[in-house]
């Protein structure tokens, strides 16, 4: 009974727990419930992925209505992988959140915080699991609206303007997506994505379909912050509460990339002509510029959180380069980097949250001498930084290596050089932090700082440890990514 309904439970559990959190009122109780639910969601995601790897895609008919009329939850290799990422990061961040949120968010808002967090988790999981295009929009808005709320809970008043800016950009992006879905419905009469994929080739690329393609592409790229549509991201990440930044940085943009993948490869199919042109002439150049420009901008940031935010946009560039190539190797690199970056950046933001918890700031100058005063925390930062750069034996290396291979396979030396240059730039911005923390002595006026509490340090180390682990053991990240890439290019027409 439970096993057959896993896809529904994946969504329904956090969705029901969210309002319960609000009713509990006591922050700690709400946290315990949220943590329990997110662990359950993680267990379900693991079960779904194993099931998919064993026996192929799962189709779940919601309410017993057969697709394409009813809403179908369709779990294949790609979205089972995305579900796993989102659920895992959600569980780790929630375990971490209690102390961090207790300090950064006013007590009266604690239960509201966990409610919004669970809704955001529901939305992101929902986007990943659903097989229905309009349902995808609804879940996208659930996750977006709750993430605006989460961002606005930051201590700095600039969190409010950042949330507002994100709200405007996010709504425009989502509305573009809904226009695209509408135009597709208009030309095919179906909303089921697999069904859309089956019907579109017969219609061909008429103007309505092309317009739908354009709207969907732009809408999704706003949401995933592809250069030059990334302006909402740095402020939103810099001023949100630490736990929220870690969660959104490693899940929200990744799920948006999933949306793009799903529309590009399942709905329009890899043979759709406008898509090839868009990928080669638009996505790859923009993504390459993102890598170079945003890595450079990151070097000049005085706020470490903001620096990591710019680095995120650059890393999204890497993923989009891989997707833009549209080959098996390229897609494998893109999807594997999606996973590796989620783990690495999530870990780095959690580490940064530990620092903020202790010294109340993440300005670069305030980190002086922290290497000696918070050795475990700073060491985690160094390891995460190494993975960000892409040093061998870290997760970042594995996916960048495949990405360079994909670029060379295409004969695209310029992009291959840009990828390496991006790594050098990453070395500079990571080194700036390391230099201040280890080589500069703490000023006498610096507040006493000891290690962050274990309840925060352990989750941060889990993700940082994972980013090292997946640098050595690549069967999960690279193996599943490759299966997903093959599935996208071959299985779905």
């Amino acid at each position, binding site marked *: 009974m439970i096993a057959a309904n896993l896809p529904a439970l994946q969504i329904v559990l956090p969705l029901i727990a969210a309002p319960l959190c609000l009713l509990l009122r006591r922050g700690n109780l709400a946290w315990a419930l949220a943590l329990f639910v997110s662990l359950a969601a993680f267990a379900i995601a693991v079960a779904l992925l194993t099931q998919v790897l064993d026996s192929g895609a799962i189709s779940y008919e919601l309410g017993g209505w057969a697709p394409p009329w009813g809403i179908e939850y369709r779990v294949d290799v790609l979205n089972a992988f995305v579900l796993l990422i989102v659920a895992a990061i959600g569980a780790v961040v929630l375990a971490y959140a209690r102390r961090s949120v207790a300090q950064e968010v006013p007590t009266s808002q604690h239960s509201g915080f966990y409610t919004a967090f669970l809704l955001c988790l529901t939305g992101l999981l929902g986007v990943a699991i659903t097989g229905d295009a309009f349902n995808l929009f609804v879940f996208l808005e659930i996750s977006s609206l709750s993430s*605006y709320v989460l961002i606005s809970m930051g201590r700095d008043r600039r969190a409010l*303007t950042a949330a*507002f800016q994100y*709200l405007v950009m996010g709504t425009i992006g989502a*509305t573009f997506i809904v226009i695209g879905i*509408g135009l597709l*419905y208009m030309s095919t009469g179906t909303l089921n994505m697999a069904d859309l994929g089956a019907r579109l080739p017969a219609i061909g690329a008429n103007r309505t379909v092309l317009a739908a393609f354009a709207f969907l592409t732009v809408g999704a790229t706003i949401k995933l912050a592809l250069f030059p549509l990334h302006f909402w991201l740095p402020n939103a990440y810099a001023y949100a509460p630490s736990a929220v930044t870690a969660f959104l940085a490693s899940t929200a943009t990744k799920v948006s990339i999933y949306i793009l993948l799903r529309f590009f490869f399942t709905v329009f199919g890899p043979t759709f002509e406008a898509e090839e042109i868009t990928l080669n002439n638009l996505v790859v150049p923009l993504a390459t510029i993102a890598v170079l420009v945003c890595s450079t901008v990151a070097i000049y940031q005085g706020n470490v959180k903001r620096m990591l935010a710019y680095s995120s946009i650059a890393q999204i560039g890497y993923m989009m380069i891989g997707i833009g190539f549209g080959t098996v190797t390229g897609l494998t690199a893109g999807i594997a980097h999606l996973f590796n970056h989620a783990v690495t950046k999530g870990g780095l933001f959690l580490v940064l949250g530990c620092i903020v918890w202790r010294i109340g700031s993440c300005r670069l100058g305030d980190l002086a001498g922290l290497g000696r005063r918070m050795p475990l925390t700073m060491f985690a930062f160094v390891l995460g930084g190494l993975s960000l750069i892409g040093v061998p034996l870290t997760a970042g290396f594995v996916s960048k290596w495949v990405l360079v291979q994909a670029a060379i396979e295409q004969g695209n030396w310029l992009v291959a050089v840009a990828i390496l240059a991006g790594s050098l730039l990453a070395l500079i911005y990571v080194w700036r932090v390391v230099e201040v923390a280890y080589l500069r002595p703490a000023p006498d006026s610096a507040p006493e700082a000891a290690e962050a509490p274990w309840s925060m340090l352990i989750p941060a180390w889990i993700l940082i440890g994972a980013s090292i682990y997946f640098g050595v053991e690549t069967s999960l990240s690279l193996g599943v990514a490759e299966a997903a890439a093959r599935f996208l290019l071959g299985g779905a027409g």
Partner: protein
Amino acid sequence: MDIPGLFNYWIVIFLMMTGFYVVIARGNLVKKIVGLNIFQTSVFILYISMGKVEDGTAPIVIEGAKGVGAVYSNPLPHVLILTAIVVGIATTALGLALIVRIKEAYGTVEEDDIFAQDEAE
């Protein structure tokens, strides 16, 4: 080009661009939300227009002999857009709530003034 036949779609494009322009060009946050609303409304009309079937009546089953062979409008876009309207209202409510908080924190809802205050810090 069949302009009268595509009247609804011209309206959609006009409203969409108006709303989009207001969002981009206006510095007042409340006006931005108004623009966003106009922008979203255009999509509602787009969906409702595509549900129209020529000579179709409201999609409510007609009982008895009169109902045989009746042509109905496509109800699915209407239902979809009901959901989108709810999403739009939630977005507007959240946007306005944020504006209230911004007004409390900054004492203004003009983007330029907020920017100047942030720069001054």
